[in-house]
């Protein structure tokens, strides 16, 4: 009996059973063979399933061995210790939640458009660099960060990352973290909104389907509020049905006289999104956000499962090269810069995403039942997101490279016609004829696919190929718009939710200066702060959409840098806590990812700020265009002096932001280093910020499937409950 109540502090050293040795050896062999095929095959095309096998094998080994090592040795989880869900239980914020249910909530909160967009853009470097970074990055950095932040926040009754930064590092670190979170969110929202605008521009089908989600969500909101309170599943089924109808209806609208009404220019869409963002974020949650959230969660999970099944059925062959020449030359059209550091910036979500630290120190730690469950929820949840990123990379790599570059290079580079696009792609060393471009657009019933940047259209083309091959029913146009809808839907949810979070941060900060602001339901304050947040991301969105150089390739690196900066803050906080709690010998677990992340972020910002290459450095770009402007010249791809001025303004703003982000990272790491040195010199003075130990009376399994010992304990606890009650 003593043996079954594992406290995890003294792991029993037993010889593993033979069956387990055999299984794990097999998993390792399959993974290793798959990696061998993926990494060593040159000059011939390989099946996408090798990528999946390599990733899944690696995830399994990492989860079984590395995550377990961290949980037992580094974090020393203790299942006899009550979690905040148990000690502070109030059945609203704090509530012990079944691990499988919490996994669903946590995954729905961390997974969004990020792991879908980044890998698509990074496919410019070939499939190999992205695959390696997504898998290695998640195992040693991303999943570790998510799990450890979740654990430390849980031990502190669910404190946020900002609060932990202030308590562990100090006011400077805390303020830097707060400013960092806010700016990142603005850039994030702008980039995501830009993805939607690029996907919907000049597409009556897409615009109509997405526009219909607003009345659908409103209907669901009223249905849930007044007709059938709390019947979420039934409401969602109706909603998804209407959504599918809206996708089909988009096809009809495109062929009807309404088509012109829904064919909008990018600028019009920007204004539509800004107005939508403002209105949505000041409306009560039940009207628009809550139903949207249900819809996008169901669509997200459903589509991910569909994509996994589709890949298995279609078994597509990768058309992309393993490593393209852009990786070393750094002159790719999708985004500038060479493999290091820019692959690691472009693919943030899916490998390492600082944003997750906000979720892991938000609601999840207040709901977790047992300390050991951080492995399944924190580490496992991030592995799942990584799997989504690999699927997106595959979807971008199964389409013809010529089409990929014709879709993802900036409009200014590709020119106005199919012929000019075909020539521009040939200039990059790939080929696609104007006829093929026209046929590709016709197969998904879009007017054109040229310069449909932002990642979403490319992913949608890849997914539509996989789905129509895998499920055999054709319907590529339907699947394309299904995929666009799926992405746009949860991006709009993120825009709404993110604007609200930004507004709350602003209200909270301003409330320190001016009391009335602190009341979050005070209408004038609510409108003002919402308007400020929307204006901030709206500015970057508008600048991105109208940028003559192409908004995505200018803004996406900034988004990546910002996201990885947040990861640096999270990993710094985690490393500081490890050192302050006397675990210097394990500090490498978060310290090495931190060093890597800092190297990546700082190199990228350095190049973005100081590079002499105008394609890469924002200020070099600014100098080049402002000199030309002084001489009255117009440099392509700009077409007028106004364009020239816009390039100058944009590159100045972007350059200042890149420098600002880098400065924040340096400040936080330097401040944390000071705190760590102090703690190491005088270990006795280091105070613990953990909540005190309370003995747990809850019984719950650690992993997905309960062990025999856990089942016995649960059965005993259930018997005890009945006896106690009777």
């Amino acid at each position, binding site marked *: 009996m003593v043996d079954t109540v594992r406290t995890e502090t003294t792991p029993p050293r037993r010889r593993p059973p033979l069956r387990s040795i055999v299984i794990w050896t097999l998993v390792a062999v399959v993974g290793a063979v798959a990696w061998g095929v993926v990494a060593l095959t040159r000059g011939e095309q390989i099946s996408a399933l090798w990528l999946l096998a390599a990733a899944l094998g690696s995830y399994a080994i990492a989860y079984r061995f590395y995550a377990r090592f961290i949980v037992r040795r580094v974090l020393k989880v203790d299942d006899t210790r009550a979690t905040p869900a148990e000690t502070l239980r109030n*059945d*609203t*914020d704090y*509530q012990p939640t*079944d691990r*499988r*249910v919490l996994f*669903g*909530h946590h995954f729905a*909160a*961390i*997974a*969004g*458009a*990020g*792991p879908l967009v980044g890998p698509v853009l990074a496919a410019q470097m070939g499939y190999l660099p992205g695959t390696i970074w997504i898998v290695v990055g998640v195992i040693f950095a991303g999943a570790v960060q998510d799990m450890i932040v979740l654990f430390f926040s849980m031990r502190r009754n669910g404190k946020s990352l900002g609060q932990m930064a202030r308590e562990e590092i100090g006011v400077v670190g805390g303020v830097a973290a707060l400013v960092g979170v806010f700016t990142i969110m603005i850039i*994030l929202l702008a980039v*995501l909104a830009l993805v939607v605008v690029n996907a919907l521009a000049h597409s009556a089908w897409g615009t109509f389907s997405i526009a219909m989600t607003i009345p659908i969500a409103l209907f669901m909101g009223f249905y*849930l*509020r007044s007709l059938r*309170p*709390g*019947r*979420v*599943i039934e409401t*969602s089924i109706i909603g998804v049905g209407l959504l599918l109808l809206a996708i089909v209806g988009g096809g009809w609208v495109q062929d009807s006289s309404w088509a012109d009404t829904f064919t909008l220019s990018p600028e019009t869409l920007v204004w539509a999104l800004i107005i939508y963002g403002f209105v949505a974020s000041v409306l*009560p*949650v*039940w009207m628009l*956000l*809550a139903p949207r*959230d*249900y819809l996008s969660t169901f669509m997200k999970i459903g589509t991910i499962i569909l994509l996994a099944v589709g890949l298995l059925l279609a078994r597509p062959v990768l058309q992309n090269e393993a490593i393209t020449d852009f990786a070393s030359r750094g002159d790719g059209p999708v985004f500038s810069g060479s493999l290091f550091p820019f692959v690691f910036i472009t693919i*943030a*979500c899916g490998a390492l*995403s600082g*944003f*997750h630290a*906000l*979720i892991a120190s*938000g*609601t999840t730690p207040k709901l977790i039942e047992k300390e050991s469950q951080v492995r399944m929820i924190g580490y496992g949840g991030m592995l799942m997101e990584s799997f989504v990123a690999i699927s997106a990379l595959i979807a971008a790599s199964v389409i013809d490279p010529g089409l990929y570059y014709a879709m993802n290079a900036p409009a200014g580079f590709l020119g106005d016609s199919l012929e000019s696009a075909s020539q521009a792609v040939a200039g990059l060393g790939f080929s696609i004829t104007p006829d093929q471009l026209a046929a590709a657009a016709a197969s998904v019933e879009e007017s054109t696919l040229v310069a449909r940047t932002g990642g979403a259209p490319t992913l949608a083309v890849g997914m539509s190929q996989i789905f129509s091959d895998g499920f055999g029913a054709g319907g590529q146009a339907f699947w394309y718009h299904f995929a666009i809808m799926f992405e746009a839907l*949860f991006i709009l*949810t*993120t825009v709404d*939710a*993110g604007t*609200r*979070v930004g*507004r*709350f941060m602003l209200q909270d900060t301003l409330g320190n200066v001016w009391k009335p602001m602190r009341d*979050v*339901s005070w209408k004038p304050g609510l409108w003002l702060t919402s308007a400020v947040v929307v204006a901030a991301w709206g500015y970057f969105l508008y600048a991105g959409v109208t940028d003559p150089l192409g908004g995505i390739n200018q803004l996406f690196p900034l988004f990546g840098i910002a*996201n990885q900066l947040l990861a640096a803050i999270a990993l710094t906080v985690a490393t500081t806590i490890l050192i302050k709690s006397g675990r210097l010998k394990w500090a490498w677990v978060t310290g090495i990812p931190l060093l890597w992340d800092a190297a990546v972020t700082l190199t990228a910002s350095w190049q973005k700020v100081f590079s002499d290459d105008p394609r890469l450095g924002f200020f070099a770009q600014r100098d080049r265009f402002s000199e030309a402007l002084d001489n009255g010249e117009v440099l392509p791809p700009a077409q007028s002096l106004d364009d020239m001025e816009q390039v100058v303004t944009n590159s100045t703003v972007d350059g200042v932001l890149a420098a600002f982000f880098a400065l924040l990272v340096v400040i936080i790491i330097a401040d944390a280093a000071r705190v760590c040195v102090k703690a190491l010199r005088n270990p006795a003075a280091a105070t613990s910020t953990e909540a005190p130990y309370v003995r747990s009376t809850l019984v719950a399994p650690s992993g997905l499937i309960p062990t025999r010992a856990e089942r016995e304990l649960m059965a005993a606890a259930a018997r005890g409950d009945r006896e106690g009650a009777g």
Partner: protein
Amino acid sequence: MTALLGAVGRAAAGVWWYLREVSGETAYDRYVEHCRRHDAAGRVLSRREFERRRQDDRDRSPQQRCC
């Protein structure tokens, strides 16, 4: 055959349980149970009142959605 049907039935019941839990449909059941446990004589909100209050609470605590 009956064993197969039983297994399918259990799987369906599991999926249904999971959907209800994940979507928050069971929140009201838990609330009622919570009220009974703590104050058996106290007034229990109706489902409509409870769901309204729960929705309105979300206005005051925004939930982050990630990228």
